[in-house]
């Protein structure tokens, strides 16, 4: 329980310290906060692994008056993934956002924003109260928008404003759903809502909340804000925006449809959501294929990769919840979130290294850079293996589990999406890889320290290790899983 509290409070304290302390002590304080929060996240995961879900009633008030926090396997696993990405981003940002490189404004703003984002993410991962989740989402939005605008360039500010428009519209839709839920049931606690008496307005409330969360997750057709926003930010900030921020709204979608109101998961509704996910997989892949800049390819790839997660809804939700394949489909979706987070952070950090070394992320200028910066090229290739879903990566395990569930449940149409998305990913990632591994060198890069180069490599290797060592995380994700289905697959 101390680990749960520490994971929520340490990032906030470190964020305040990184504003208030004298100039020289700011970055060390932020790094200390990063290290301590990493320990808290790992400790929380160990506690969940040994004792099951860790729960905390704020102020000792039980719901519906009070707010319940609970770390289950899903929340703790996302917390650990977040912590690993944050550590990598912090190490890269020490170099990339030094005042001499990024300017005083960005280097001052980045550390508190990053730590506040971490605190808000951890709050969303463990919240069991719909309104508390709303506040957490808003904190994430505020910090993420500020991270997009951190460079202060006109283009970045316009991208941040467009992002803010979508995110605010999403928040208000979500809030409208929360209001209707409270008016009908007098509670916003997810556990209590699961046992509520159905009311006529429930479907409208769930629809409003889901629509709002989709806008925040950038699911097709709400994806238009994402690529400009994610590519306008400095690379460490893009890594946070792409690897972590959409995971919070995705997690709430899963909690709503699987835990709070699973009785409303009509097959037609699940089909619509999964179809939007399938379109996102294909459309995001096609758009990634035609981009000429590395960061935009990686950003459009996020649109595609997030679409996969929505395939969980028809495979593990509704009537399928009690089926033998549900556990596999559920875990496959979460594996996709975890491995995408690690691999996408590695890709954006690698793109940042290329930007620093070559001064451009146009594919033509990156030709032959794998020879000059072999560790970064290898990291990008490893991350690409995960995103394509090739064995033995975490992305492969995710897509394998989803595909097994698709065949076992007779919904084989989703398997075409998985295969097609994998082929598209191979195509759109082949272009940067072919440029990087070309024989001739377009530009002579500036030297990059090995320590900095190692950061994306470690993150990419972790996304591969997630597949190699998938048994432990698989069991971990079953802790506190909403519907304990028979483990048939």
């Amino acid at each position, binding site marked *: 329980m101390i680990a749960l509290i520490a994971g929520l409070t340490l990032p906030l304290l470190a964020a305040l310290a990184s504003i208030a302390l004298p100039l020289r002590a700011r970055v060390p304080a932020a790094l200390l906060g990063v290290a301590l929060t990493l320990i808290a996240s790992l400790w929380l995961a160990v506690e969940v692994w040994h004792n099951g879900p860790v729960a905390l009633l704020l102020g000792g008030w039980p719901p519906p008056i009070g707010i319940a926090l609970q770390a289950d396997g899903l929340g703790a696993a996302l917390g650990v993934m977040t912590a690993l990405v944050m550590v990598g981003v912090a190490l890269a940002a020490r170099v990339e956002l030094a005042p001499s490189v990024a300017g005083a404004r960005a280097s001052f703003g980045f550390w508190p924003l990053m730590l506040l984002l971490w605190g808000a993410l951890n709050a969303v991962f463990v919240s069991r109260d719909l309104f508390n989740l709303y506040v957490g989402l808003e904190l994430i939005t505020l910090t993420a928008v*500020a991270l997009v605008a951190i460079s202060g360039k*006109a283009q970045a*500010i316009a991208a941040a*404003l467009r992002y803010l428009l979508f995110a605010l519209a999403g928040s208000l839709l979500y809030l409208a759903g929360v209001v209707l839920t*409270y008016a009908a049931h007098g509670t916003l606690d997810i556990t209590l809502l699961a046992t509520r008496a159905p009311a006529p307005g429930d479907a409208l409330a769930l629809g409003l909340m889901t629509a709002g969360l989709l806008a925040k997750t950038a699911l097709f057709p709400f994806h238009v804000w994402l690529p400009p926003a994610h590519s306008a930010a400095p690379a460490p900030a893009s890594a946070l925006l792409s690897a972590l921020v959409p995971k919070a709204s995705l997690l709430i979608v899963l909690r709503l449809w699987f835990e709070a109101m699973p009785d409303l998961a009509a097959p037609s509704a699940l089909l619509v959501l999964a179809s939007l996910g399938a379109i996102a997989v294909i459309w995001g892949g096609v758009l990634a294929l035609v981009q000429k800049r590395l960061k935009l390819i990686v950003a459009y790839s996020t649109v595609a990769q997030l679409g996969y997660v929505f395939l969980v809804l028809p495979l593990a939700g509704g009537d399928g919840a009690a089926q033998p394949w549900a556990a596999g489909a559920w875990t496959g979706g979460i594996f996709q979130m975890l491995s995408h987070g690690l691999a996408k952070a590695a890709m954006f950090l690698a793109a940042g290294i290329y930007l620093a070394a070559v001064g451009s992320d146009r594919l033509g200028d990156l030709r032959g850079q794998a020879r000059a910066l072999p560790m970064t090229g290898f990291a990008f290739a490893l991350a690409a293996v995960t995103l394509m879903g090739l064995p033995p990566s975490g992305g492969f395990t995710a897509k394998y589990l989803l595909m097994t569930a698709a065949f076992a449940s007779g919904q084989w149409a989703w398997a075409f999406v998985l295969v097609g998305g994998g082929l598209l990913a191979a195509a759109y990632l082949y272009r940067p890889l072919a440029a990087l591994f070309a024989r001739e060198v377009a530009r002579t890069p500036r030297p990059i320290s090995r320590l900095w180069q190692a950061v994306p490599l470690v993150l990419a290797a972790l996304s591969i290790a997630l597949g190699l060592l998938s048994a432990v995380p698989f069991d971990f994700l079953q802790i506190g899983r909403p519907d304990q289905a028979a483990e048939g697959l």
Partner: protein
Amino acid sequence: MSLSVFALTGAALVGLGVYGLLARAHMLRRVIAFNLIGSGLFLFFGAAAARSTDVDPIPQALIITGIVVALSTSALAVGLVVALARSTGKAYLPDDEGGA
């Protein structure tokens, strides 16, 4: 009776806000439209969540929290609009310049 007046007023505010958000491209108008939607939702919340004659403290706490969140979001949005206007001379997003 009075409760349904509040709820209907809240719904009307939400409608006005949504119209402003969709029909107006000027970013300051959009920020105000967001605040209208938010205020409408809070008003509706207060009216719709009054379940009996007793005072229910939870909606009050949630509305106050929501107002604080809305205020901070508006502050960030206005700050960004000002920064955009300073750097481009316009308070419109690039694609929306033809709008009203």
